[in-house]
C-alpha cells in the first residue's frame, strides 16, 4: 500500500507526519532541529529518501540539513559524520552553510542595492533560505531561494552552493523591495518537461522566468495590477505571494498575489485575474490538484493588515474551473473564532486518488483532506507556527 509523508517546517523545528495510503492514522516524529526556524523541508522527486531542510536562526545564521533515509537521521552535507573534517589540502569543510552572492568577474554580478521600505537604497545582505526545490531529475541538484532575493543551486547534494547571479543582476534589482516578511525569493517552479525553464517569484519584485537554466531572466508580470506601488502596472515591484502549476501543463500558471488571484496560459507572458467570487482575494497559498489541472485551492485571508480568515472562519476555497468560480470548503475546519494564517509555502497535495490536500497554520495545526478538499481533519493541532508543508507520496 502507498504511504504519505508530510514534511512540516515550523518556527521551532521540523516535524514529519507519516501515514499509510488510507491517511487515517498518523505517526508524528519530531521536533527535528528543535528550537530552530525551519523554513522549508522538501524531498527529492527521484529519491524520496533524500530530504533537504533549511534550518535558520537570527543568532546562528543558515544551516542546510540533509537526510538520506527519509528524515530519520540528518547531517550537514558539507560535514557528513565520520568523514574527515578537512579536504586533502587542509581546507576545513562546512561549506554547506555558505551562501555567498557571486560577484566574480566571470559568472557573477556586482552586489548592488535594493529599495528599502522607505524608498531609499539598502545593501543586499544574505539572511536565510526560504525555499528548497530539488531537481525532478537529479537528487544532488537543488535550487534555493533566499533572502535578500537570489537563486542558488547545488549540484553536489548540498555540500556547496553557487548563486545563479543572472537573476539578481537582471538589471531591475535596485527597484526590488522587501515585503513585510523580507525581500525573499520564495517560489521556485521547475518544468520537468523542459530542463531549461525555471519560474521564480520574489516579494516584492514579482515573477521571473528563465528559459536557459537560470543564466538569463525576464520579468513576467504583464497583467498584474498593484495599487500599493506608484505605477500599479509596473514591470517590477509586485508582491507575488505564491505561484503554482500542474506538471502536465507547465504553461498554465496560477498566482496568489498580495491582493488578487491570477492565471497565465502562456508561461507567464500575460496574466488575468480569476479572483471571481472569493470573499477576499488576499492570501498566501495557492496549489493545484494532483490529477485535475483546472482544480485549484486558495485560503482567503481578510487583509494585508489582518492576517486571519474573514469572519473567523477557516475556509479553503476550491475552483474546478481554473479560477473565477469558487466554492468554500468548510467541513471539518473551524467555522468560528479562528484567527490563524496560512503562509505561502504551507499547502501541498499528495498524488493518491482521491487527491489529498494538506495545509498548516500559524496556530500550529496541520489539516488534511483525503477527498480533494470536501472534508478536513486535523492531523496535529499543537505544533509551533507552521511555515511550510510538503508532501511525499511513497510506493
Amino acid at each position: 500500500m502507498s504511504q504519505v509523508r508530510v514534511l512540516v517546517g515550523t518556527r521551532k523545528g521540523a516535524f514529519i507526519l507519516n501515514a499509510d495510503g488510507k491517511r487515517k492514522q498518523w505517526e508524528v516524529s519530531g521536533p527535528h532541529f528543535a528550537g530552530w526556524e525551519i523554513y522549508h523541508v522538501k524531498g527529492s522527486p527521484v529519491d524520496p529518501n533524500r530530504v533537504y531542510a533549511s534550518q535558520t536562526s537570527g543568532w546562528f545564521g543558515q544551516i542546510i540539513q540533509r537526510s538520506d533515509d527519509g528524515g530519520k537521521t540528518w547531517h550537514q552535507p558539507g560535514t557528513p559524520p565520520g568523514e574527515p573534517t578537512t579536504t586533502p589540502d587542509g581546507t576545513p569543510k562546512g561549506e554547506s552553510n555558505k551562501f555567498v552572492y557571486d560577484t566574480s568577474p566571470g559568472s557573477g554580478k556586482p552586489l548592488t542595492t535594493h529599495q528599502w521600505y522607505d524608498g531609499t537604497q539598502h545593501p543586499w545582505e544574505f539572511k536565510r533560505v526560504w525555499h528548497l526545490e530539488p531537481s525532478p531529475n537529479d537528487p544532488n541538484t537543488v535550487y534555493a531561494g533566499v533572502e535578500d532575493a537570489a537563486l542558488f543551486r547545488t549540484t553536489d547534494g548540498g555540500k556547496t552552493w553557487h548563486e545563479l547571479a543572472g537573476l539578481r543582476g537582471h538589471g531591475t534589482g535596485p527597484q526590488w523591495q522587501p515585503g513585510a516578511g523580507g525581500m525573499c525569493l520564495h517560489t521556485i517552479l521547475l518544468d520537468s518537461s523542459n530542463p531549461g525553464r525555471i519560474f521564480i517569484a520574489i516579494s516584492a519584485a514579482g515573477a521571473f522566468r528563465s528559459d536557459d537554466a537560470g543564466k538569463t531572466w525576464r520579468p513576467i508580470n504583464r497583467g498584474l495590477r498593484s495599487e500599493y506601488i506608484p505605477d500599479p502596472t509596473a514591470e517590477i515591484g509586485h508582491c507575488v505571494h505564491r505561484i503554482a502549476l500542474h506538471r502536465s501543463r507547465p504553461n498554465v500558471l496560477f498566482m496568489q498575489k498580495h491582493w488578487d488571484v491570477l492565471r497565465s496560459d502562456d508561461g507567464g507572458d500575460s496574466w488575468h485575474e480569476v479572483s471571481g467570487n472569493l470573499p477576499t482575494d488576499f492570501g498566501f497559498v495557492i496549489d493545484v490538484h494532483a490529477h485535475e489541472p483546472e482544480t485549484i485551492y486558495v485560503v482567503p485571508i481578510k487583509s494585508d493588515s489582518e492576517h486571519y480568515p474573514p469572519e473567523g472562519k477557516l475556509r479553503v476555497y476550491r475552483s474546478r474551473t481554473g479560477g473565477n468560480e469558487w466554492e468554500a470548503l468548510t467541513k471539518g475546519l473551524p467555522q468560528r473564532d479562528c484567527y490563524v494564517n496560512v503562509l505561502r509555502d504551507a499547502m501541498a497535495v499528495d498524488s493518491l486518488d482521491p487527491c489529498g490536500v494538506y495545509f498548516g497554520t500559524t496556530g500550529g495545526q496541520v489539516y488534511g483532506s483525503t477527498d480533494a478538499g470536501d472534508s478536513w481533519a486535523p492531523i496535529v493541532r499543537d505544533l509551533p507556527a507552521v511555515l511550510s508543508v510538503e508532501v511525499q507520496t511513497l510506493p
Partner: protein
Amino acid sequence: MIRVVLPPHLRTLAHVDGDVTLRVEGPVTQRSVLDALEAQYPMLRGTIRDHVTQERRPFLRFFACEEDLSHEPPDAPLPDAVVNGKEPFFIIGAIAGG
C-alpha cells in the same frame, strides 16, 4: 589547551555535550580561537562569524573572566586565565526574542 563554552544550539550542531577544548598555535586571540574552533568543528563555520567578513554575528557575544570581550579587536590577546585553560572562553547568544 583552550576551553570554549558553546551555546546549546551550537553544541548540538557540533555533536558535543560539554566544553570544547582546543589547541591554539601562536598568540591566543578571539580570531585564533575561532579559527581553531572552526577547523575542529567545520559545521560551525558561518554560525559565529560571517562567512565573508569574519565579523561576529550580531546576536552573539564573547565573554571571559567575567568580562564582555565582544567589542575587543579580534587580534587582541585573550586573558592569561583563558590562555592557560583556567577559565573558558564563552560564546553566548544574546537574550533577545524567543
